[in-house]
């Protein structure tokens, strides 16, 4: 087993992180378009997407079977499957992997739910360290407004209703997101996250992202990849 920070692959891994409604998925898809247009082989990997775990997660959410620990472990299982299938092989092949949410999502959520910080980090020790991790920071009220307008009804676990912080879903969601935001802020220095101001115009954010990503994509890398393909 290779631990975080010790993988040596020819590919590049870029991840986006942030609370719901921070605009990270929009930015990642814009980056994706650009990289494809530039001729790089790009592989996209999404949080919670393992076919092996999907049914179990869906059922557990519906029947409300989760505790903070099992929520954490099942998401780690999902992430392990993604790592073994969607992340490591393309990186070995020299491709660019884009991940919408990564281990920091788990660290923020699970610790907000009361899981031990060190324990959660240990569970994800097998993860590949990203080339760059973008953290989209948006003020809490902005994020909440964006989500509320996009989705009329908050889901049970999304709102943190399993924790019994508040009877009202919106109230519970605010408390939960507040805790998550706090955890993210701790992680900026711990993991060297690159902070992007989610209040900036979309194009300005994207320009910054492309500039940073571009530094890690030398022309040589592109040629090599294209030839190998």
């Amino acid at each position, binding site marked *: *087993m290779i*631990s975080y920070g010790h993988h040596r692959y020819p590919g590049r891994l870029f991840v986006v992180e942030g609370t719901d409604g921070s605009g990270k998925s929009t930015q990642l898809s814009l980056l994706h378009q650009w990289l494809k247009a530039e001729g790089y082989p790009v592989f996209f990997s999404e949080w919670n997407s*393992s076919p*092996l*775990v999907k*049914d*179990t997660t869906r059922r*557990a959410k519906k029947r409300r*079977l*989760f*505790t*903070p*620990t*099992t929520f954490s*472990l*099942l998401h*780690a*299982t999902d992430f*392990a*499957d993604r*790592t*073994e*299938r969607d992340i490591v092989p393309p990186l070995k092949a020299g491709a660019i992997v884009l991940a919408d949410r990564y281990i920091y999502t788990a660290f923020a959520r699970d610790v907000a*739910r*009361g*899981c*031990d910080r*060190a*324990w959660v980090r*240990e*569970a994800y*020790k*097998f993860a590949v360290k990203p080339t760059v991790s973008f953290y989209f920071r948006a003020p809490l009220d902005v994020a909440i407004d964006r989500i509320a307008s996009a989705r009329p009804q908050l889901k049970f676990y999304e709102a943190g209703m399993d924790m019994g912080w508040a009877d009202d879903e919106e109230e519970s969601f605010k408390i939960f997101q507040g805790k998550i935001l706090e955890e993210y802020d701790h992680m900026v220095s711990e993991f060297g996250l690159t902070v992007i101001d989610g209040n900036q115009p979309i194009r300005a954010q994207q320009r910054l992202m492309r500039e940073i990503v571009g530094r890690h994509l030398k022309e040589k890398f592109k040629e090599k990849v294209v030839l190998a393909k």
Partner: protein
Amino acid sequence: MKEMKFYGTALPNIEVEPYSGKLVVIEGTDGVGRSTHVALLRTWLESAGYGVLDTGMTRSILAGRGIKNARAGHTLGRLTMQLYYAADFADRLENQMLPALRAGFVVLTDRYIYSAIARAVVRGADPEWIRGIYGIALVPDAVLYLRVRSAEELAGRVLASGRGFDYWESGMDLGLQNDYYDSFIAYQKLLLREFDRMSGEYGFSVIDASRPVRRVALTLRKSISRLVQEEPLMGPIAGEKETEKQDKAKSAAVPPLRLAVKSEARKE
């Protein structure tokens, strides 16, 4: 009553309180007879009036089905497998084992974290990593490790049971050997070595499982009766003197635990 003690960090949102049950782990490699003995022990304890919960790997409501489906497809990656089992374990610990222990049950578990650790380590997982994940586990009251002398003996037992060799029990995912038999032997040898390594670390009671079933059953009964008889079978009744309480417990309608393995003995 006993304080809850965990190997690492206790589970979040769990009341760490003394419990009156007993957590008894039956460990051992594939084909060693664990499930046979769990069934025998259950009947034996229940006939003496003990509440028994038995549980085992992949029997969680949360992840049991998912793991079975993934195993059937032979599509489980190594890390994914270890974490799926950990999720299954956590669900059973929180929703089956801890509530039963609080309620005073004897919990018999067919395998515990040790099998999971052995399997993970044999598959190249970082030993510290997998132990860290299972730091959520409660330290059991007893770990009864059924040990056989050789992997060849296990192979004989698996065949005798009529089940034949299973893909995962044979460690076919490891690609150690080309056929099921050779792979089974190679894989089980690695597991036996891991179990021996853990034996001291976790304080296993090693039970020679190469002996006839009734002898093994007798040894298991002895270990468990020592454990459960530390606690009175009936709760104390207010206003009674200590000796009266004991007399009452003894003369209660429930028969005491008998060690002899009768039905088996008669057959011989």
